[in-house]
Structures are given as structure tokens and as C-alpha cells.
């Protein structure tokens, strides 16, 4: 194996620290997320870290692929600052409103367009949509094997892959061979911090923006039109409870809690 060509799927998402301020417009029923700062999806930084480590080990090249509106470019460039070599932004009005399958078609088309790619790494889930579908669906559309929720990964010089996939009470060990799509779980590594030299280098790294036509996709297969799922109404779940404040010294507070435990039947 002569170096690894790795694509990393990265999604710019609104900063999870701000999700509490997301509103639904009462008139239109649409999410109001203007003004929320964008970040690279947290799990994708773990995917990128895995890619950078693999390339440090095997040599090769890391290209990020992202489907996002043009204004997300600066966020994607943060991945270049972390160490990726190149970024492809797949951007077209026609991509709007995509569900995971329509998203995966576009991403897969981008990866194909990139040409030879040994390994596709993705985060295991996004912070906003959070379906955790995309890694497997990209794998299916590309017609290559795929695994997600991977906490440990080893690739040898003969392109054999060994991986651990997280399960409820442990993990399953899986073996396969490249090419493969892998959804990286947070547990796999700790992403590096972005360094100042990294930021400077990022400014000159190649960035490509591709649309529907460049990817040779049928408009009916992408965006809302190409999505088998269709969204309905949005709402905000009501979590609030009528909190009663307990006051007093620790001993008194504990006494009240014991009484509540009794009345709720967990203490006799």
C-alpha cells in the first residue's frame, strides 16, 4: 500500500452550546437559527484526527468533503487548519432540504469525483440532525463496506482493517479490507488543537466548490426533491416542571428528601 487517500466527511453545524436559543417561528413553523455561530461538527474532528494519525503512520493525503451552503466555507477551512490537505465543498441550491439519503448521494458523488479513495472517515453522528445515518448510507451508495461507531481502528500495510464497533456492553471486533467507510466514535481519540502555523498554512490550501452539474447528479435525486422522508411540523418538547424550592439546613433538607422518597414509593 502506497500511502492512504482518505476523505473525511465534515459537516458545519450550529454550535451545540446555542441550541437552547433555537426558536421555531410561530408563523412559518421554520427553525430560526440565524446568528448561531457555526462550528465543525464535534464528532468530525475525531474523524479528522483519526485521518491525520493514519497519514502520519502510512503517509498519504486527507481531503475533506462537505455538503453545505457556500457561507460554511470558513468553518470547513478549520479542518484545513487542523491539518487536512484539501477541502471540497459541495454546494448547490438544489441540495437544500436533503434527508440523510439525499445527503449521502451528494457526498458519495463528491467522493467518486475525487477519484481514488482508500478510506472514508465520518463522524458517528452530527450534533444537529444527529441521525447517525450518513456513514452507512454513503458506504452503501459507494458500494463499499462500512462500519460506524468505531472506537478503535487499525489498518495494516496490506490494507487490512481491524476495528472495534461500540456495542451496549462492550464491542464487536470486525475485520475487513479497504476501501471502507468508517464512522468514528468520540472514544477513538482526542482531536488536536488548532495551531497557529496550522491556521496560516490553511489559508493557502486548495479549496474546491462543486455544484450539481459538476457532480453529474440528477436534480430529482438530491435535496428535498430527492428525499424519501419529508418533514412535517416542528415543535419544542415541554420539559418544564413546577419546581418546589426546599429550604433549610442540610439536616432539614435531607429530611425533606427522605419524605419525598417515601411518598414516591422508593423507600419504605
Amino acid at each position, binding site marked *: 500500500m502506497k500511502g492512504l487517500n482518505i476523505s473525511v466527511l465534515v459537516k458545519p453545524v450550529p454550535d451545540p452550546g446555542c441550541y437552547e436559543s433555537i426558536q421555531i417561528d410561530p408563523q412559518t413553523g421554520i427553525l430560526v437559527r440565524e446568528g448561531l455561530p457555526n462550528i465543525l461538527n464535534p464528532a468530525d474532528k475525531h474523524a479528522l484526527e483519526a485521518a491525520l494519525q493514519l497519514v502520519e503512520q502510512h503517509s498519504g493525503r486527507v481531503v475533506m468533503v462537505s455538503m453545505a451552503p457556500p457561507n460554511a466555507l*470558513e468553518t470547513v*477551512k*478549520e479542518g484545513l*487548519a487542523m491539518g487536512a490537505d484539501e477541502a471540497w465543498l459541495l454546494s448547490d441550491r438544489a441540495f437544500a432540504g436533503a434527508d440523510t439519503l439525499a445527503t449521502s448521494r451528494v457526498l458519495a458523488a463528491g467522493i467518486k469525483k475525487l477519484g481514488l479513495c482508500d478510506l472514508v472517515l465520518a463522524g458517528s453522528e452530527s450534533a444537529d440532525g444527529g441521525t447517525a445515518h450518513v456513514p452507512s448510507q454513503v458506504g452503501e451508495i459507494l458500494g463499499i463496506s462500512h462500519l460506524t461507531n468505531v472506537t478503535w481502528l487499525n489498518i495494516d500495510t496490506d490494507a487490512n482493517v481491524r476495528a472495534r464497533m461500540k456495542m451496549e456492553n462492550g464491542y464487536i471486533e470486525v475485520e475487513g479490507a479497504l476501501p471502507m467507510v468508517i464512522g468514528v466514535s468520540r472514544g477513538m481519540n482526542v482531536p488536536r*488543537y488548532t*495551531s*497557529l502555523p496550522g*491556521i496560516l498554512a*490553511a*489559508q493557502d490550501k486548495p479549496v474546491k466548490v462543486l455544484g450539481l452539474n459538476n457532480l453529474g447528479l440528477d436534480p430529482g435525486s438530491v435535496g428535498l426533491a430527492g428525499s424519501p422522508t419529508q418533514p412535517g411540523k416542528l415543535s419544542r418538547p415541554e420539559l418544564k416542571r413546577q419546581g418546589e424550592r426546599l429550604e433549610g439546613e442540610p439536616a432539614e433538607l435531607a429530611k425533606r428528601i427522605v419524605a419525598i422518597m417515601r411518598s414516591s414509593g422508593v423507600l419504605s
Partner: protein
Amino acid sequence: MPEFTFSPAQEMLRKAVREFVEKEIEPIAHKIDAENSCPMDVFRKMGALGFAGVIVPKEYGGAGLGLTERAIILEETARHAAGFAMTLMTHQLGIEVLLSYGSEEQKRKYLPELASGKKLGGLAVTEPSGGSDVGGQQSTGELKDGKWVLNGRKCFITNSSEADVCVVTVRTGEDAKGRPSFSAFIIEKGTPGFAPGREEDKFGLRGSGTGDLSLNNCQAGEDAVLGGVGNGTKMALAAISKVGRTGMSAISVGILRGCLEEGVRFAKERVLYGKPIAKLQAIQLEIARNRVDYEAARLLTYYAIGLKDAGGSCDAEIATAKYFSTEAAVRAAKRTMDLMGGYGVVNDYPVGRYLRDALATIPSGGTSHVMQLVIAGQTLA
């Protein structure tokens, strides 16, 4: 005046530093203050990421960027830990004098390790007899048998016990008019006769060590002289304005942002009369004032620094920014404590620390009086 925006790379830098600070510094900010301890491991990490050596040219292992980028780093650090930011800020003050006045040999010798944060720097001017009065320094340097012998005591020196490389000014003679003239020396930690003395128990900007340095027949070779004999004061004052005051100004902007953000958070969360106090008009006015102080300080600070980066002479603009920002930080911290009621004085909240830090920024790099004198001097000239 042109539109005031940062470049995409500067924005990216801000985000990167913010992430680092939120993960590595914010969680220990309270501890740094409570224990008055400087987390040198965090400093080294910032060095490895290129943050400590931001203004050092690439050929000496730095990032080769300007004071604007440096101010972004200091502001973000000071947002959660102004005391620790002070360590970084003074490190860069030490770097600045080497950078601007060092010989090629001196730069090659010291800058790479300072830029990467493997070593910590400092600049020692102030003495018991002379802070504002720079000419009042009493420490001396005498040339004996080709060696300089330094004697005296410095005080209020940031990084006094941790600094590996310190630039020290001492009186080395008189000028043509018979006034004392000073020279600067590069002294390394561990040089015989050079030792840190007592550390001040500061009530603000804790987490940066500030203390005495004593010179006791400390010997320095002629290669330790920085920027030529007799140029010490000029160099130190220039560096203190260019890097020291701009740094203090940026640190104050960080404190101001802390006040604004903590005030907003508290006002939204604290419920009185059945609704968040943010709905009370009196509280809204306090928030508005915090916003105005923050915005004004930010504009003055980055404006002055921008002028300096562009190569202008702008001591008065820098003094204006430093004077306004440090005083505004004090006002904003006090205001934020007021809007928090009793919670403001409890150490579970960081705002009391912000007030103490803000107060301590005022003398550092020159007092508000002195800043006003610089401003007035240039205005009346």
C-alpha cells in the same frame, strides 16, 4: 475610517484560541486565582501551538504575525483568566525587546525557544525607587575587566521566578548632559548573583507571578548587552508602549467581555417577581453600559494596535486605549457585581475576580495618570 473587520484567518485564530482556553484554562481559572499559581504546563501547550511566539518572525521559529493577532490571543485568554494572560503578555514583552534590539546572534540564541514556549521571558525595569519615574532606577552596571557587574533590586516584575530569559535595565553611566543613562542586559535564569526574591501576594491578576529580582554582583558578558550601551531606557519605554500597554489593553477587553457575558447570563437566569431580571429596565441599562464599554474598548484597542502594526507612531492612541480599557473594565466589573446583588460578592461566580483583575491592570504597563500624561502631552504638543 474603513470598515472594522478581522480577516478570516484572524477569526479562525480567535476560534482556535477560544476553544483551547475553554477546554484548558476556564476549568482551572478559579483555582489559578485561589492558589495564585501559574499553570506552566498550559503555557507550554500554548507555546507548542504557536500562540506564545505569535509575533516572532518565522525565521526565528515564530508565526511572524502582528500585534493584532497577539491581542486576539491575549483577549481570548483574559476572557477567562486575565492573571494567566498576564504571564503570556509579559513573556511577549521580553520577546519584543529582543526582537527589536537584539543582534542577529542574540535573536538566534534566544528567540526560537521563547517562540515555542520552551522558555519563558520577561522584562525588568521597575524598581522600588522608580516605576513611573523610569529615570529613578538605582540598579547599576559597571564594566570591570571586560565583564559587566550588575547590582540592585527590581520589583513588581512579572514572571520573576519562572522566567528563563529576562531583560534587565540598570544604570550604566551618564549622558552628555550628565543625566543617568541606562543599558539593558539579557540575563538567564540561574546566572550567579541573579535571583528572584519575594513574590507579591497580589489581589488581582493572580496566576502571574509578580515579584522582586535581585542583582548581587551578577556578571554579564558584553554579549549580554542588548541594543547598545546607554539605550536601555529608550528601548524599554518603546517596548512597554508597543507591547506592554497594547497587551494590557487587550487583556482588559477580555475582562470586559467576561463582564458582559456573565452579566447577560445571570440576568437571564435569575428570576425575581416571577420573571428573569433581564426584563427589569434598570438591569437592561446596566447591560447596555457594559456593552458600550466593551465595544468602545475593543475599538480603541484594535485601532491603536492596527496603527502600530501598520508601522505608525501612535503612543498617544495606545495610551488612550490602555487608559480607557483598563478603567472601563473596572467600571464594568463593578456594574456586573451590582446587577448580581448578593451573588456578585460570592466567589462561586467569577465576577469578583474580574473586578480584582481589572483593578490590577491599571498600574501594569503604566498607571492611568501616566497614560493621561502621555495623551495630554501629545494633544498639547
